[in-house]
């Protein structure tokens, strides 16, 4: 054991943090090293000195006053709204279900089914809405040749009284095709829809790629919700290629738009793909001196599972000036 290690172990020993084996090793070193033995005396003296500033038990009056003040504050809080209680209850139950795999699987299946149905109906509504806008634009949609109209869903079934007639109301999917330049609002709307709703990762990849390219070229990214779509894709898309393209598209705006910066910081912390996390760290270069950025990088430098990412974070932290 060298003296530097011994000095640290002396402190740990003074506070009972050494294992028996480490304590025994330390004693052997101290027996042979007068400097370290002196160091131990100094640490023990420090402990004795520090005891001159003792911890006092709070007296009963202080406890009572504090408790009374707290009770008054709690009594004056408004009761939690019903949706807050339900939201917290759901979150707690979902966390609890981690210990019940079968129930969790069932819940996922039921939830996925309900979510798919709900999402499908939502997509239908949006498609119908966008189709209406597309038809009003300069681009003329053309029905796909020879594609049969699929039935999307049945909305109601009614039997006519005193009759054999049955009325069925249903919605149909009518495949359409639209063509136009990226400047066209209708095309942009369809691309944004595709980025959020397309079931195929390839389609989402293409649409996010086009939107990102438009943003990097510096036009068409201020309004129209392009940035929101890219941020949503970065946060939620399951495909890492799509998320990477979204990140590229947001890069020019990380300094001017705090929402973009926060979105990239989330990616640094939570993205499952280490390449995305690394790319996100690089994207933060224009804002690497910001306090919130430094806080996130400090967390990542200490706790990310990937050593390259920890090193990359430390490198950025060492480059950026320390905020006083």
């Amino acid at each position: 054991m060298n003296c530097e290690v011994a000095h640290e172990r002396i402190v740990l020993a003074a506070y009972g943090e050494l294992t028996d084996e480490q304590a025994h090793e330390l004693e052997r070193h101290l027996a042979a090293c007068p400097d370290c033995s002196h160091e131990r005396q100094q640490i023990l003296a420090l402990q004795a000195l520090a005891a001159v500033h003792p911890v006092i038990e709070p007296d009963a009056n202080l406890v009572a006053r504090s408790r009374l003040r707290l009770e008054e504050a709690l009594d004056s809080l408004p009761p939690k709204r019903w949706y807050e209680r339900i939201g917290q209850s759901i979150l707690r139950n979902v966390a609890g279900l981690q210990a019940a795999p079968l129930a969790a699987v069932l819940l996922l299946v039921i939830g996925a089914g309900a979510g798919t149905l709900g999402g499908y109906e939502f997509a239908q509504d949006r498609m119908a809405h966008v189709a209406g806008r597309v038809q009003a634009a300069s681009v003329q949609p053309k029905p796909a040749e020879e594609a049969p109209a699929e039935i999307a869903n049945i909305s109601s079934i009614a039997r006519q009284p005193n009759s054999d007639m049955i009325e069925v109301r249903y919605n149909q999917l009518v495949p359409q095709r639209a063509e136009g330049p990226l400047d066209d609002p209708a095309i942009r709307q369809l691309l944004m829809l595709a980025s959020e709703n397309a079931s195929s990762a390839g389609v989402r990849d293409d649409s996010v790629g086009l939107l990102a390219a438009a943003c990097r070229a510096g036009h068409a990214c201020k309004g129209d919700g392009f940035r929101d779509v890219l941020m949503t894709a970065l946060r939620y898309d399951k495909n890492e290629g799509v998320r990477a393209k979204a990140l590229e598209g947001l890069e020019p705006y990380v300094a001017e738009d705090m929402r973009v910066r926060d979105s990239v910081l989330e990616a640094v912390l939570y993205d499952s793909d280490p390449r995305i996390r690394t790319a996100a760290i690089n994207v933060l270069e224009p804002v690497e001196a910001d306090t919130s950025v430094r806080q996130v990088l400090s967390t990542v430098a200490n706790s990310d599972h990937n050593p390259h990412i920890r090193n990359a974070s430390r490198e950025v932290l060492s480059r950026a000036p320390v905020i006083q």
Partner: protein
Amino acid sequence: MDEPGRGQERQQTRAPEMELIREAQAGSRAAFDELVRQYEQQVLRLALHLTGSEQDAEDIYQEAFLKAFRYIGNFRFECSFYTWIYRIVTNLCLDQLRRKKTRREDQSVVLDHSGDEIDVLSSVSDNRSFSNPGKELDRKVLGERIQAALNKLTPRERMVFELKHYQGLRLRTIGEMLNTTEETAKNTLFRATKKLRNQLAGLR
């Protein structure tokens, strides 16, 4: 035979902590009040020793438990409730230390709620009826030197030293409370003790 109210109270006291937390999460004010009673002494002790002021300690107590009440729904039993509540308290204490880093004056005393001094050293000095005034003064001066040395630590060093030396917590627990690793807490303790040694060199 016990009165029903007393029996219920005793049952509440014996209820395992997890049950209390779940009840508090479900909205039971009585369960939350019981949790407060279990931890309030430790919270006040820590806040009082760090801030040196009863008023500041009361403020930290108030903020800590109000936060706990507001966010108890987010507690997921991933750590102990003790660690969770201490994490809230240490963050509030760190904020306080950062704000008042240079405001400390006579630190061998603690201020009560009306701002009057409570002489801490007199409560630990010799109880014999003929005390030595010179010795009392020495201890007072020594206390001031200790406090001045503690004030020269960074807020985090101060906090780690406080939790380790004065509150007696394990370094691993300290790491969890400060949202860092045991290794970082250890290194912070080394820095703190080294600085204190240098500050207090020559004192006996």
